């Protein structure tokens, strides 16, 4: 069953362009799919499913941000703000127009893509650090609008919107298991789309811009178009993430979409690996599970009555978060994706060293 590549045996372009070239990889993927869609939802408890749901939602946002930052090399500190746009758009469409989720979520995506493109316009004239600050401004401006524009929240300043659970026709997706399928469907769609974007003209144009935008322009890549497209696509993902969050928690309030959220998402792609789709998912899982894992650890310490306490949870989380980011940057800048690749390489040649 185990196949290793020991040469290039493809006889058609189709086979050569396949994402998963080896039978082992394809079987592995199929097995992963079975675990994801059959084993986990039936075997796992509510708590684990709720964490997996959050991971799924975060994956969508991280993949989108990675397309922009890792793919096109444009820095965005406004992911949280863009997610807010998506969440509020979906909530408003669902509440005031009564749209079902399969209409309101794409609508949220397109709305956010529009907003994201507007804030992406400065990227045409400024880059790098200046752009990071421009997107930071986007974050603050969006946050402020949510707090002060009564027409958005409808209930006056600082109001939260409360949603019905998503419904597929007569079937309300109201339990953790049903929501799991709902979230994972979108996460899979997002993954497949991103995987394919990076293989097409679009993805290659992004990479060209990331590596050197002036050179890319000389090679015939329309920078104006592709930088805005990168912002639009990434914001679309952010919008969908926000909308998923809205449907999942059924409450939309600005508190979930602050600068801290934007930083969390940047941390996900740094820890996962810049420019890598599987890395984004790993990073999303890591950052999402970090608070849960830490809480578990602290409770174990308390339960066993070990000497020494880890102190206040919020502060410990901050410190750990910062240390992990710095640690990854210094010791493994390729992130979890690189670690995963190295592990695979090791086992491919095992038991030989090389």
């Amino acid at each position, binding site marked *: 069953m185990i196949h290793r590549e020991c040469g290039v045996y493809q006889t058609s372009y189709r086979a050569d362009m396949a994402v998963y070239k080896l039978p082992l990889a394809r079987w592995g993927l199929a097995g992963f799919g079975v675990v994801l869609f059959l084993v986990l939802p039936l075997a796992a408890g509510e708590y684990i499913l709720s964490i997996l749901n959050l991971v799924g939602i975060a994956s969508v946002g991280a993949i989108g941000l990675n397309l922009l930052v890792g793919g096109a090399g444009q820095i965005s500190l406004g992911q949280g703000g863009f997610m807010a746009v998506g969440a509020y758009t979906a909530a408003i469409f669902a509440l005031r127009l009564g749209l079902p989720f399969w209409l309101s979520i794409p609508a949220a995506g397109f709305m956010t893509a529009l907003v994201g493109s507007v804030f992406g316009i400065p990227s045409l004239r400024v880059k790098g650090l200046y752009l990071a600050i421009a997107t*930071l401004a*986007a974050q603050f401006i969006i946050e402020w609008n949510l707090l002060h524009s009564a027409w958005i929240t409808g209930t006056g300043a600082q109001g939260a919107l409360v949603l019905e659970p998503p419904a597929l026709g007569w079937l309300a997706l109201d339990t953790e298991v049903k929501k799991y399928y709902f979230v994972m469907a979108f996460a899979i769609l997002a993954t497949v789309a991103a995987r394919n974007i990076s293989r097409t003209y679009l993805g290659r144009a992004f990479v060209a811009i990331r590596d050197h935008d002036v050179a890319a322009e000389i090679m015939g890549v329309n920078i104006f178009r592709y930088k805005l497209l990168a912002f639009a696509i990434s914001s679309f993902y952010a919008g969908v993430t926000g909308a998923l969050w809205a449907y999942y928690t059924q409450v939309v309030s600005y508190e979930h979409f602050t600068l801290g959220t934007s930083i969390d998402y940047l941390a996900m792609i740094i820890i996962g690996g810049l420019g890598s789709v599987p890395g984004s998912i790993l990073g999303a899982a890591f950052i999402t599970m970090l608070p849960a894992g830490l809480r578990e650890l602290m409770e174990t310490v308390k339960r066993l009555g070990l000497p020494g306490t880890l102190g206040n949870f919020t502060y410990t*989380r901050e*410190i750990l978060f*910062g240390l992990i*980011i*710095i640690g990854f940057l*210094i010791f493994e800048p390729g992130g979890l994706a690189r670690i995963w690749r190295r592990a695979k390489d090791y086992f491919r040649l095992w038991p030989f060293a090389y």
Partner: protein
Amino acid sequence: MTFFVELTVNGLMVGALYTLVALGFVLVYKASEVINFAQGEQVMLGGYLALMMLASVRLPLPVAILATMAVMAGLGFVVERGILRPLTGYPVVSVIMATIGLAAVLRGITPMIWSAEVRGFPAILPATPVKILGVPISPVNIASAVLAVVFMAIFGYFFQRTRFGVAIRAVSDDPQAAAAMGIDLRIVLALSWAIAGIVSAMGGVIWGNMLGVDPYLALVGVKVFPVVILGGLDSIMGAVIAGFLVGVLENLAAGYVDPLVGGGAKDVVPFVVLIAVLMVRPYGLFGREIIERV
């Protein structure tokens, strides 16, 4: 009219502080092209340290301030050596994330050591306001504005007249040429972070005196962004002028726009201006425009 004068004078006072913090920011950017997202947290730490030296260790004020500066300079040095030097040559986003990570660590450690409650500085100056141009201003504000201006003067002298100041400017112009002329890049980088630490310590002392010390002090780091973008990231002169501009703008916005929109204009107007400036003059009022060649 009195309202307008009052807002402007208050804005200038706050602007002096923004300028001070922005100076540290611009200094680091000039020397190493790093945007320091932990600047606000460094200011916060400076405030806490100064408070500890004054209230717990009971040092006299000038000694306490000097001690704070020394500790913060040491911290800046360690940060440059330990975190940023290994990241030389990495993409911009990595360096930004490193300073964001540092900010998170400082934000967690500071309230863990000291508590997160607001703590007032022991009163150094009398609380009765003095009238200037018919506007009542507390002596603390005046003292901090004066201190900020003194610091700017020292900075100006440092960059124009001293050996190290000129070395830092040379490195910011062209690191390779500077190294070829015998300037030790490592010393310049470490020194610029140490000076940024000193400036943060000063900022922490002054802010702490005006508002009390609490974790929200770190928010000054966010306020610095509109200032440095407006002035140009690599311009000391720009930071000084833009600091005062943003301070005044903010106060005018709070006075005149807040009643229309229901509060909070103070926090968002500088960022709206920031976006506008980036679209019209991407390199700020005094920043150096970079001409790219392939």
